[in-house]
């Protein structure tokens, strides 16, 4: 079981009281031993940040390895409890599992091109720091003196139009809102969305790029990704679509793949320059 503390500490909670809409799922300070629950987290980075905060150390000094382990335990618990997790969380788990292996095992072969485990950990630490910084910035922003709350404009302005001589005003936002909502109104409205049975690995890869930036270095991930995929028959379709998607990306010149031997991990790397269709698969 994993202990989950509330996401906001008391101080934050006080600062923020009344300043923004409360999250729909609010965990309270007095909540005892909490089950694994990803409700209320804004994605895997948020969850990682929360786990990191519980180490109660500066983010700069945090052990990424320990953090990865905690995250993986968290995900394992969730899976045991059959809690459905969004793809983002699973893909992050796969990447952290990969990272963990890179941090623990000495590099098998010297590969100049491949990012070292330490570099990958630094990348993650950077992203966590950046996210936390933005979060703090948001808090500082919202706590500033605000127009209409702490300082005020003239209450009784005198009729004066100084800007353009235009008689009519409208913003781009007004225009787009009007267009989108009226087009939407008339479009067939009863669309039922079938619950997706499986997410393709291409999708997973897109999530991954969002989570971790581009694969600027050779990255072996597929095997880790697979172990976090939903079980059963879905895995086969995922595997198939994964491979197809990968080849597709290679064909488009967006990705390079490399494999040391048959059944060995598939290494991926994004092509920054336009070397279209460089396929380096062996075996």
């Amino acid at each position, binding site marked *: 079981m994993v202990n989950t503390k509330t996401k906001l500490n008391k101080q934050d909670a006080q600062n923020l009281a009344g300043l923004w809409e409360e999250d729909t799922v609010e965990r309270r300070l007095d909540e005892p031993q909490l089950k694994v629950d990803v409700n209320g987290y804004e994605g895997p980075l948020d969850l990682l940040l929360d786990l990191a905060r519980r180490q109660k150390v500066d983010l700069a000094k945090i052990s990424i390895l320990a953090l990865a382990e905690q995250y993986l335990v968290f995900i394992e618990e969730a899976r045991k409890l059959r809690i459905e997790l969004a793809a983002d969380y699973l893909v992050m788990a796969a990447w952290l599992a990969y990272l963990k292996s890179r941090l623990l095992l000495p590099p098998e072969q010297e590969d100049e091109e491949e990012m070292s485990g330490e570099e990958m950990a630094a990348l993650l630490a950077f992203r966590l720091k950046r996210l936390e910084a933005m979060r703090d910035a948001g808090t500082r922003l919202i706590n500033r003196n605000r127009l209409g709350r702490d300082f005020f404009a003239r209450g*009784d302005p*005198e009729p004066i139009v100084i800007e353009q001589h235009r008689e009519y005003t*409208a913003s781009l936002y007004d225009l787009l809102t009007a267009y989108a909502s009226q087009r939407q109104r008339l479009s067939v409205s009863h669309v039922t969305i079938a619950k997706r049975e499986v997410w393709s690995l291409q999708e997973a890869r897109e999530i991954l790029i969002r989570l971790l930036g581009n694969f600027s270095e050779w990255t072996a991930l597929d095997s880790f990704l697979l172990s976090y995929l939903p079980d059963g028959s879905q895995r086969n379709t995922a595997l198939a679509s994964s491979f197809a998607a990968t080849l597709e990306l290679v064909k488009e010149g967006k990705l390079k793949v490399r494999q040391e031997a048959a059944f060995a991990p598939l290494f991926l790397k994004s092509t920054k320059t336009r070397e279209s269709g460089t396929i380096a698969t062996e075996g």
Partner: protein
Amino acid sequence: MGNSNEAQILAFDPSGSGDREQKELREHLRMVEAIVFASSDPVSVRALEERLPEGVELEPLMRELQQAYSGRGINLVRVGNNWAFRTADDLGFLLQREAVENKKLSRAALEVLAIVAYHQPVTRAEIEEIRGVSISRGTLDVLMETGWVKMRGRRRTPGRPVTYGSTEEFLDQFGLEEIGDLPGLEELKGAGLLRSQMPANFMIPEPHDADELNEDEDPLTTDDLEELGLLPPSGE
């Protein structure tokens, strides 16, 4: 009037070496100044007194403030038993000169405008088809008046309906470099303006506003313009 003393108060000199009384006076002046400024109506003497520390006499305070603003661009004026700031009489011309009323476009007009922008060249009947309702008289007139919509030509179909399109001023108003900068389907979804699940056949056209007429468009002739009431009849 004691000029030296007055000037000091008027400037609210923050480094003022004045004694405590002076400082308090300055503080009270600041308070009433802010209250009258922020209020949407002239502020009653009672309301002012309520917000000042107890025992502060309002009358001399207001006279002091009024004095400070006399001769300036704005004056503190008494309206019955209330106080308000007003532009100095002699500067009224600054405010009147271009007192054009800024109107907001109606929702319907915005919708039609957007359809013209995205679907141009488009006829009135086509706009109505897209909207699913008829356009009330005057909506297109208003849009033409804004200068954002223009008549482009006539569709070479029965009835020769007029086609509408957007103008340069339209781009200017909405901060677009070219009409193709209007966001497409994916971007409208991305900005949260459209549901992410839309029917597969749902399309948003890629707008273009080339001056060049479509194949099925005829240019507007002088006769057309007269007929549409856009030109004074020429042949008298």
